[in-house]
């Protein structure tokens, strides 16, 4: 099915806002980009390509995402860092069943205090989006990352 212009722009805005939210450290707003039952997953490309089910992070439902944010902000001790997302052009496909599939490449740069920026995570978003009324939300967001090792730890959402 063809992709109408409204959808194109809604998707573009969704990804721009999503990156801005995380990079702006507005973590409490982050779960609001998802539907109540959405699945958020950060998974190494190795597992994904080999159909190994393990994720680096696998949060099913907005409730679990909120627990993650609480955990990140109140329980996990870590060095402070900035994130910066640069997200490529998304490809949108609307299936027979009207589900909207969106994929986009991303690069996330991390900056720790006293250091230059470094490549933190590069990979592909493999997502599904749905309209809740006027607003577009993620019902699935898989962050499939290429980088074969994680530079120590992954704290904030990607």
């Amino acid at each position, binding site marked *: 099915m063809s992709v109408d212009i409204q959808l194109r722009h809604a998707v573009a805005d969704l990804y721009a806002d999503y990156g801005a939210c995380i990079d702006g450290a507005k973590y409490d707003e982050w779960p609001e980009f998802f539907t109540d039952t959405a699945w958020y997953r950060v998974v190494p490309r*190795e597992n994904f390509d080999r159909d190994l089910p393990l994720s680096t992070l696998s949060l099913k439902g907005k409730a679990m995402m909120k627990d993650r944010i609480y955990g990140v902000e109140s*329980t996990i001790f870590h060095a402070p860092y900035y994130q910066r997302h640069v997200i490529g052009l998304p490809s949108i496909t609307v299936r027979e069943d009207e589900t909207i599939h969106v994929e986009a490449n991303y690069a996330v740069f991390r900056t720790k205090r006293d250091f230059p920026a470094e490549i933190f995570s590069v990979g592909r978003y493999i997502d599904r989006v749905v309209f809740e009324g006027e607003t577009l939300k993620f019902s699935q967001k898989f962050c499939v990352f290429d980088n074969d090792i994680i530079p120590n730890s992954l704290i904030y959402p990607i």
Partner: protein
Amino acid sequence: MTSNRREGLDGQTLPTWEGEGSSRVPSPVYTDEGIYQRELERIFYGPHWSYVGLEIEVPEAGSFKRTSVGERSIIMIRNRKGEINVLENRCAHRAMRFCQERTGKVKTLVCPYHQWNYNYDGRLLGVPFRNGVKGNGGMPEDFSLDDHGLNRLKVAVRNGVVFACFDHDVEPLEEYLGEDILSCFDRTFNGRKLTLLGYNRQRIPGNWKLMMENIKDPYHPGLLHTWFVTFGLWRADNESRLKMDKHHRHAAMISRRSDAVTKNIEEGVTSFRQNMQLNEPLLLDIVHEPWWGNDTVCMTTVFPNVIFQQQVNSLSTRQIIPAGPDKFDFVWTHFGFEDDDEEMVERRLRQANLFGPAGFVSADDGEVIEFSQEGFEQDQAFSTICELDGRGVGQSDHMVTETLIRGMYRYWREVMEL
């Protein structure tokens, strides 16, 4: 952080220990390049068993997995008899680390540079143009295929877990582990068929021993890991036992979750969050498994390169691959059992959120190791103080102790003669 070598004009800094004991570890033990080189020689390439993987990772003849022992790349491969070989990933001709894929299946091991060809046992099968071409060239008369196979490590397989050692004079694995540690090992690995759930890989910018310390340190989980404390997964007041082998190089921390979770101001644990509640209780949906017995947690450190994790329903092996005195790769292999039903698989995967590079109770372990390394780097004259529960070394039935750390360094000092 350019180089870790602190060698000044005034010669090499050697670690100076306070006294005979092992309760105060000097900075160079974590930062000195020369000490690290000796560790590779005497520990990783010496008479110590290193974990290399699980049998299920190489299901069939020709199936291989590439990994490392110390800094040396090795190949774990199953031969036609079904045995598992561990071969050094280095061509005998001109040193090529010819195997570059991480896993796969091959007919023979061929080094592409000049197509020297090895079988699953590492035997050199053939050399192109060995007898020359049209009567020209070829290998000398006295060249023997048998002299130029791949370097073959000694292998021990126990209940699906594979260990290897460069030193063929190493004692048998069972002796190496000793009775107590072996029983912890067999508790999880009792011969059941394992299932592979997947991997997590992280590079931690700290000395490899700091990870061993971390898992030999029952003092920190109740303090650093708010998550643990608050949900009683790990508390200083939980029932627990600490075991070591007779050399004190290996250890096991065994504990059981307390049912009643109470504030424990009295010990001044500020990391306890009274009002903390999960929006999604499933995150801690723990189901007791018969083989546990009463224990909900068993963390086993097998010197020098692996940790076997059972944290409630989450199971993993954690492999250490050192890369200099100041960093190591940490490879998590999560697994389950063949007879797990769907819910249990899902549960293990869900609880995996607590562990690994992003885990609620593991992400910060990587962080504290990084910061400790920074502390050692900035002052070679510093020594730690690991004197909780005294300066001696011994088993323990409580967790308010650093005895396991002292145990490891007592052994380290013997082996390293430092």
